[in-house]
């Protein structure tokens, strides 16, 4: 296969089409506008339907309808728009509907800025809407990884009948990188005989619903959902380790900052300091066990979390490390990007050098 140069947002959209997504509902917001724009051109070519909705809120409800009717469907937005979508996402989790939601993160809170950030980690991994639910959250750090994950995301969603989020940031959305299109491993998926697609001779009608007004019925439903999320935790965890063997400094970072960390690792190596990186690829499920084990390695003297936020994944780092090693944090909000120099300096400071 040949390498092709693609812009992140457009690649993500094309990956969805290759995964069989034929319906897109969304609303313009920077820095992800190329996603709906690409879908507007591309979906009619494959007999799909692109519709620009009147708001992000309307879009996620259109996704709910299309998913409930049995289709492969997605939406995309950026931070403030994802806030609007929380209603639809919790309804979809409750009604057990599959779909892919792409968040190309920008600075916040509120309107914030259009520059890249990672300030939606809590929202994505703690379930930003009401109630007890989880999404599998995929966090690529290259455009190649974004398209690979995106192609799998729809299968993951269908496998569990649950929404899946692709958590990117404005850098990944806007930059261009070479990539190769791979055919992803397809999962064995059950037919969507639960969908509200019309009786067509079926004996009993299908209802798509998240309301279980009787408390015992609602708890039974919740227990079933929790069982599903446990399965996701067992089966969908992904992470990457780089140079952790014998490392003094253990970096933890996901998305774009993880690449800057690798530059910091090189700077530290030049100064004789061995540093490694644990990079979550799913931020839910989170690699707690692996991080706990790595941080307990005798060589590790300091754990350094790097995020483009005030420190949200930092909570999960603290949970995993469990106080066994000191934890430092390097981060910027407001769309400011940390540099490899300040990351390396923070690591040295954590080592007391």
């Amino acid at each position, binding site marked *: 296969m040949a390498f092709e140069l693609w812009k992140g947002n457009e690649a993500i959209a094309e990956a969805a089409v290759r995964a069989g997504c034929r319906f897109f509902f969304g609303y313009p917001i920077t820095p992800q506008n190329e996603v709906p724009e690409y879908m507007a051109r591309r979906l009619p070519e494959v007999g799909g339907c692109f519709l620009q909705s009147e708001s992000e809120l309307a879009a996620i409800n259109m996704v709910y309808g299309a998913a*409930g009717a049995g289709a492969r469907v997605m939406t995309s937005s950026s931070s403030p728009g994802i806030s609007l979508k929380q209603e639809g996402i919790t309804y979809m989790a409750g009604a057990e509907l599959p779909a892919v939601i792409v968040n190309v993160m920008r600075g916040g809170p509120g309107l914030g800025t259009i520059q890249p950030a990672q300030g939606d980690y809590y929202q994505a991994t703690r379930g930003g809407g009401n109630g007890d639910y989880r999404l599998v959250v995929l966090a690529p750090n290259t455009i190649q990884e974004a398209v690979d994950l995106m192609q799998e995301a729809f299968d993951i969603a269908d496998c569990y009948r649950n929404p899946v989020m692709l958590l990117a940031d404005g850098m990944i959305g806007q930059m261009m990188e070479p990539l190769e299109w791979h055919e992803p491993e397809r999962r064995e998926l059950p037919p969507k005989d639960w969908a509200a697609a019309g009786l067509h001779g079926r004996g009993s009608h299908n209802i798509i619903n998240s309301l279980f007004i009787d408390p015992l019925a609602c708890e039974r439903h919740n227990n079933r959902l929790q069982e599903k999320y446990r399965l996701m935790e067992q089966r969908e965890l992904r992470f990457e380790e780089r140079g952790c063997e014998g490392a003094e400094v253990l970096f933890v970072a996901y998305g774009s900052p993880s690449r800057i960390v690798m530059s910091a690792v090189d700077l530290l190596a030049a100064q004789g300091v061995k540093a490694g990186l644990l990079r979550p690829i799913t931020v839910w499920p989170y690699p707690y066990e692996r991080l706990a084990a790595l941080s307990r390695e005798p060589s590790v003297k300091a754990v350094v979390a790097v995020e483009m936020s005030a420190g949200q994944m930092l909570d999960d780092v603290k949970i995993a490390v469990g106080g066994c090693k000191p934890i430092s944090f390097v981060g910027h909000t407001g769309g400011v990007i940390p540099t490899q120099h300040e990351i390396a300096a923070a690591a040295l400071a954590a080592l007391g050098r």
Partner: protein
Amino acid sequence: MAIVYQKSKALTDKELHYCPGCSHGIIHKLVAEVLEELGFIDAAIGICPVGCSVFAYDYFACDMLEAAHGRAPAVATGVKRVHPQSPVFTYQGDGDLASIGMGEIIHAAIRGEKITTIFVNNAIYGMTGGQMAPTTLIGQKTTTSPLGRDPSHCGGPAHMAELLAAVEGAAYVERVAVYDIPRLNQAKRAIKTAFEMQMQGAGFTFVEVLSSCPTNWGKTPLEAAEWVREQMVPVFPLGVTRDIRKEAAK
């Protein structure tokens, strides 16, 4: 023996939970009868609201989706775009459609979304215990307008049949009532026309039904039906406000 009237096959066997004399039961029947008569039960997909009729998914025999409050037109849009050959309808109350869902209904009409919306207007919020609705009449007392709706404070009632008649994507818009048999017969004709025009691809179709809420109006069912006729009809006139077939003939 010839059957003059029996319960529609498009309704399930589940007993309705609505209050005695609530118009929901009547309107459910009219929609069900139309679906049955047009042969649509097998293909139809309905979207129900949040409100007293939140459980409508248990009462209609076709496939149903529960929507978030006000979002039924957006959910229906998703459904209809996936299944353009299926009859798709939303069933919504006045809080759902005219308050929180105002954006969604207007835009569905603007897009000429080929769906049918049944709008149950009883000028009050039923399920939550009688608060003011966008369609509450001036002077009408509700739990959140205890001294009567004051237009200088919060305006007057929203006229959805007139509002949507101004939208080009709306193919058929009519306001009806069900307080007596002649009105009920007209309501059924309107609903039938709306579904027929949806399936002809004419555009967005909408039927507003003036309805009773005996419990929250503090009236008996018969008094409530009288109140619709005497108090609501002068404010919300019955009739067709938009018919694209007549526009084309001009």
